[in-house]
C-alpha cells in the first residue's frame, strides 16, 4: 500500500456521528490511518459495543494488510454528547437512513461547528440537496458514500450537491487522500449511482427467494459465478443490514416512485423477526453469533 505521511493524518480531527455498522467502519478506517476520532451515539451501551467492534475491525484490517504498516493508530474518544464535535475539522454523519433523524442530527451538528468545518453525510439514498436545507451552511456539506467494509474497499462515491462549495470539494479530497481512498464524484439524485443500482437489485434478489425461484445461496452463487459479483446481493444485504436496507428502499421509493424500490414482503418479514443480517446473527444466512457476524 502507498503510505501517506503521518503528518497529514494529524491535521484532521474527525468526529463520526452514529456508532452502527458504517460509523464503526469509518472510525476504523480513520483510526487505522492515524486520525483521531470522536465517535458519538445516543447511549453508553451502544458505545461500549462499538469500542469492541472497532477493536476487532482494526485487527481484521491489519490481518488483511489494509492499513499503512507501522503507522500508529489514532486515538478513539466516545461520547453521548453531540456538542463534543465542536472541535472537529470534519464531522461525518452516519446515522440511520431516516430523513427525520438525519435532519435533527445535521441541524444540530451544523449549529455546533465553526464555519468551514467539513460536513459529510454518509448518506445511502437521501439526496444531498435535501440535507443542505437542514444545515446552516449548505456549502460546507458533501455526500461521501463509503462502502462496507470501508477499511477494505478503497473506492468511495462522492456526491456533490448543488450548494456544495469548491472549498468543501478541496477539503474532502484532502481527507480522502489522508485515508488513502479513491473517489469518483457524481451529481446529486436519490441513491446516487451505487444504491440506485444496488438496492433494487437486492430487493429483486429477495423477491426471487420469496417466490421460491431459488434459494439465497443459489441466487448469490449465480451472481458471483456468472456476473462476477464478489459477495452476492443477499450476502451483501446481510452485511449492510436488512433493516437499513428497508429504510433506504423506502427513501428511494418515496422519491422516485420506482416500484422496484418498494421493499418486498420477505425483507419486511425479516426486519419484523429481528433477522437484520450479520449484525444480529441471522439474515438471509445464519451466523454463529451477532458478535462474530458483526462487521
Amino acid at each position, binding site marked *: 500500500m502507498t503510505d501517506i505521511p503521518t503528518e497529514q493524518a494529524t491535521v484532521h480531527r474527525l468526529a463520526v456521528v452514529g456508532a452502527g455498522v458504517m460509523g464503526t467502519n469509518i472510525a476504523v478506517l480513520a483510526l487505522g490511518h492515524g486520525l483521531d476520532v470522536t465517535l458519538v451515539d445516543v447511549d453508553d451501551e451502544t458505545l461500549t459495543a462499538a469500542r469492541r467492534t472497532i477493536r*476487532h475491525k482494526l*485487527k*481484521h484490517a*491489519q*490481518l488483511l494488510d489494509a492499513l499503512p504498516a507501522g503507522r500508529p493508530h489514532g486515538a478513539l474518544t466516545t461520547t453521548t454528547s453531540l456538542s463534543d464535535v465542536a472541535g472537529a475539522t470534519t464531522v461525518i454523519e452516519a446515522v440511520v437512513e431516516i430523513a427525520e433523524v438525519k435532519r435533527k442530527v445535521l441541524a444540530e451538528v451544523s449549529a455546533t461547528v465553526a464555519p468551514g468545518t467539513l460536513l459529510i453525510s454518509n448518506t445511502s439514498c437521501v439526496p444531498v440537496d435535501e440535507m443542505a436545507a437542514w444545515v446552516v451552511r449548505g456549502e460546507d456539506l458533501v455526500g461521501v458514500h463509503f462502502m462496507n467494509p470501508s477499511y*477494505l474497499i478503497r473506492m468511495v462515491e462522492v456526491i456533490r450537491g448543488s450548494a456544495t462549495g469548491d472549498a468543501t470539494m478541496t477539503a474532502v479530497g484532502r481527507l480522502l487522500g489522508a485515508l488513502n481512498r479513491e473517489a469518483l464524484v457524481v451529481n446529486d439524485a436519490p441513491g446516487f449511482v451505487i444504491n440506485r443500482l444496488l438496492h433494487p437489485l437486492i430487493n429483486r434478489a429477495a423477491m426471487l427467494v420469496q417466490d421460491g425461484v431459488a434459494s439465497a445461496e443459489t441466487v448469490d452463487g449465480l451472481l458471483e459465478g456468472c456476473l462476477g459479483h464478489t459477495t452476492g446481493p443477499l450476502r451483501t444485504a446481510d452485511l449492510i443490514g436488512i433493516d437499513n436496507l428497508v429504510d433506504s428502499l423506502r427513501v428511494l421509493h418515496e422519491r422516485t416512485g420506482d416500484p422496484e424500490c418498494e421493499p418486498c414482503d420477505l425483507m419486511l418479514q425479516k426486519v419484523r423477526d429481528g433477522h437484520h443480517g450479520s449484525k444480529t446473527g441471522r439474515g438471509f444466512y445464519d451466523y454463529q453469533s451477532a458478535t462474530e457476524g458483526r462487521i
Partner: protein
Amino acid sequence: MTETVEKELTAYLAERTGCEPAADQDLFASGVISSMFALQLVVHLEDEYDVEIIGPDLARENFSSVRAMSAMVQRLRADGAGGPGV
C-alpha cells in the same frame, strides 16, 4: 493438546464454511477463508481460547492453515500462563 485444538478448529471451519480442510491446507489460497470470514475467525479464536491476538501476530501466515492457527493459539496461551502474577 495440539491435536485437540486442530480438531476443534477443523470442526469449526467445517460448520461455518462447509469445507473440512486438511491441517496444513492453505485456507486463503483454497478459498476456505474469505476476506469477510477472517474477522469472524479472529473473534472466534480470541473468545474460544481466551487469547488476545495483537501486533505482529495479526499476520496471514498465522491464519493460513489449521496447523498455523493451532500453533499460534497454543503459543499465546503458554505466554499468558507464564506471565507475571500467574
